[in-house]
C-alpha cells in the first residue's frame, strides 16, 4: 500500500472542484492512457483581468492523480493566468504534504494540464516537452528516458557519473543494475563496450601537490577551497531541478550549506544533503557532516 499523506487521502475521498466548469473558456487535456493517468482541466477565466474564477477537473487515474487534480484546482482558483503558470509540480506535491516518489508524475500531470489550459485560452499550441519512461530510481523518481538522454548529452561513462548528473542511483543503490544496462545500451550504439569497473574522471583535478598533501595534510584554506570546488561542481545538477546550494560556513568537520529554490523544503532535501555529504567525504578523504545553515549555532551565525 502506498504511504499517502493524510492530505492526499482527504483530497481523494473528498475531491474539490470535481467535474467540468460551466461556461469554461480554457481546457487542458493531458495524460497517457497507457500509464493509467489522464486529466481534463477546465477553467473559467475573466477576459478582463485574466483571473481564474473557477476551475474543475475530470481525472482517470489513481488516488494520488485525483488528489493532485483536486489540489491543483484549489491552488489556481483566484490566481491570474501568469501567476498560475508559476505553479510548479512541487507546489502541488507540497500542498498535499508530499507524494511518494513513484507518484510524483501525478503532480507533473497537474502542472502540464495547467500549461495546456492556459495555452488553449491564449490560442497557443501546447506541446509536452518530455517523454516519460519506466521509473528506474525510486529514491529520486528518475525515469529511463531522462537517464538515457543525460548519458548521451554528457557522454557519461559510469553509474557514479549518472548519479552525479541525474541523482539516479544516489540513494539506496538498488537500481544500479538498471543504470548499467542503460549505459551498456548507449555504449553499444556508439560501437563501444561499457566497462563497469572504469574509473570516474575525477571531478576535482588531482595534482601532485594535492595527492601528496592528502586529506589531513591540507591547510584550512586549501580545505575550504576544495569544499567550495566540490559544491560548485554539484550545483548544475541541482539547478536542473530548479534548486541550488551554496556554502555558508565550515566549522571543523561540520559544513553548513543553504538549500535554495526547489530544494528548499523539498522532501528530498535531506537525501540531497546526504548526497553532497557523501561526495565531500569522498573528495576530502575524511569524514564531514553536511547540515542546512538553519542548524547553525545562532551566535556563530552572527544573528
Amino acid at each position, binding site marked *: 500500500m502506498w504511504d499517502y499523506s493524510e492530505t492526499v*487521502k482527504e483530497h*481523494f*475521498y473528498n*475531491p474539490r472542484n*470535481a*467535474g467540468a466548469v460551466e461556461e469554461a473558456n480554457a481546457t487542458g*487535456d*493531458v*495524460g*497517457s*492512457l*497507457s*500509464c*493509467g*493517468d*489522464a*486529466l*481534463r482541466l477546465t477553467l473559467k477565466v475573466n477576459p478582463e483581468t485574466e483571473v481564474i474564477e473557477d476551475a474543475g*477537473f*475530470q*481525472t*482517470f*487515474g*489513481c*488516488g*494520488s*492523480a*485525483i488528489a493532485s487534480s483536486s489540489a491543483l484546482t484549489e491552488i489556481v482558483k483566484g490566481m491570474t493566468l501568469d501567476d498560475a503558470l508559476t505553479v510548479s509540480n512541487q507546489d502541488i506535491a507540497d500542498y498535499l504534504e508530499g507524494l511518494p516518489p*513513484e*507518484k510524483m508524475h501525478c503532480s*507533473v*500531470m497537474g502542472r*502540464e494540464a495547467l500549461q*495546456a489550459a492556459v495555452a488553449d485560452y491564449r490560442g497557443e499550441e*501546447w*506541446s*509536452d516537452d518530455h517523454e*516519460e519512461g*519506466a*521509473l528506474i530510481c*525510486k529514491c529520486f523518481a528518475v525515469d529511463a528516458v531522462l537517464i538515457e538522454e543525460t548519458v548521451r548529452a554528457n557522454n557519461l561513462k559510469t553509474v557514479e557519473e549518472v548519479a552525479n548528473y541525474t541523482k539516479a542511483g544516489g540513494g539506496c543503490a538498488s537500481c544500479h543494475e538498471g543504470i548499467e544496462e542503460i549505459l551498456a545500451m548507449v555504449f553499444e550504439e556508439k560501437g563501444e563496450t561499457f566497462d563497469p569497473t572504469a574509473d570516474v574522471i575525477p571531478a576535482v583535478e588531482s595534482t601532485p601537490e594535492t595527492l601528496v598533501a592528502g586529506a589531513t595534510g591540507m591547510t584550512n584554506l586549501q580545505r575550504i577551497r576544495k569544499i567550495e570546488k566540490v559544491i560548485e561542481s554539484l550545483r548544475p545538477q541541482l539547478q536542473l531541478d530548479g534548486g541550488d546550494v551554496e556554502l555558508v560556513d565550515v566549522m571543523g568537520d561540520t559544513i553548513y550549506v543553504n538549500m535554495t529554490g526547489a530544494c528548499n523544503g523539498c522532501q528530498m532535501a535531506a537525501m540531497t544533503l546526504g548526497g553532497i555529504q557523501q561526495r565531500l567525504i569522498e573528495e576530502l578523504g575524511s569524514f564531514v557532516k553536511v547540515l542546512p545553515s538553519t542548524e547553525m549555532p545562532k551566535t556563530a551565525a552572527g544573528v
Partner: protein
Amino acid sequence: MEGIYLDNNATTMVDPVIVEEMLPYFTDQFGNPSSMHAFGNKVGFAIKKARKQIQELLGAEHDSEIIFTSCGTESDSTAILSALKAQPERNEIITTVVEHPAVLTLCEHLEKEGYKVHYLKVDAKGRLDLSEYQQVLSERVAVVSVMWANNETGTIFPVREMAEMANRAGVMFHTDAVQAVGKIPMDLKSTKIDMLSISGHKLHAPKGIGVLYLRRGVRFRPLLRGGHQERGRRAGTENTASIVGLGKATELAMEHMEFENTTVAAMRDRLQEGILDAVPYSFVTGDPDNRLPNTCNIAFEYIEGEAILMLLNKQGIAASSGSACTSGSLEPSHVMRAMDIPYTAAHGSVRFSFSRYNTMAEVEKVIEVVPPIMAQLRKLSPYWDGDRPLDEPEKAFAPTYA
C-alpha cells in the same frame, strides 16, 4: 480481523489449526532434523509426515519427489535453471506471455544471457493456441514452463495435455501451480509433468515455505549446494515449523476440495452476477468457463483500479487490481494487455479471490458497496457523461501524451 478479505490469490490467512500444529516446532521440537539425537529425531519424523501429506495432495508416486524450498519463486527458478544446467546443449525455453513475474522476469533475464525464449500468446479470453506451442517444441528446447492457473484471472491452462506434447518431443515440462494446488484435484503420477511449484502461503500455510515437485528420474541440478538436506537437492537447514504447517495445510485442502469447488465457487458466482447486474460497462476477463473456483476478475471501464481499491478498502473490503499504479510501473497488468483488453478497462480491472473462510453474507455486502463506488469514480472520469460513457470516449477525450 474486521473486514472482508477477497484477496486470497495474493496470500491467505494461516488456518488456526495449522498454527497450533506448528507451535511445538518453535519450542519443544526445536531440534535439527539432521542431528543424531532425540531432539532432532522427532522433527525428522514430522518432516517425513508432511512430505507424505503433500505427496498425497499432488498424487505423486513417491514422497521423495517432494523437495522443500523457501517459496514458489525459488521453486520456479530451481526448476528452470536446473533444466538449463542439466542440458547445456539446449538453449531455448518455452513459456507464456501471462506467466507470473517469478517465471517471466527470470526468462527475460535469461534472454540477456543468450537463451532464446518463446512466449506463447493468448487470445482475448486468455487461452493458449496449442498449435503454436507444437510448432516451437523441438530438441533445442530445454524446458517448457507454463502456469497451471493464472493468478490474475484464474484461467486454467491445459497443462496435462501440454506435458504430454512436451514428453513426446523429449522436452522437460515444468508448471507453476501455486494458484492451482489445493483448489483443483491433481494426480501427478498419471501425468507427464516433470516439475511443479507450490507456494505454502497460497493455501493457508505460512509464508516462506514452498515445494518443488521433481519427478523421479528427471535430470536435476540444485540451485543451492551445501549440506545434504533434501537429499542434496536443496541445501540449507529445513524450515521445520513451516514444513509441518504446509503438511497440515495440504491435508486440510484435501478435506475441503469439494467445498472449494461447490460452496466457494457458488459465492464467487454470486458476487460476479451481482456486480455485473448492478454496474454497467463492466465485464469478466479471462475464461469464465475454465477457471479456478475461487477467482473472478472484473474490468470496470473508464475508471482506474487503485482508486477503486482505496475506496473499497475504506469500506473494509480487500481486493487487488491490474492497474499500473498499484504496481508502481507505468503499464497496466501484462495479463490484461496480453488479452488485448483496452487500456480504459485494463486499468480498472479488479480481482476478487475467495477462500473457504468467506461467507455469503460478505458477498452480499460487497455487492451492495461496489456499485456506488464505481458511480462515484465515474463521476470524476473524463470519459464519463451523466450515466454513461461519452460517445466514442477515446476520441472525445484524447489527451496530449505526457
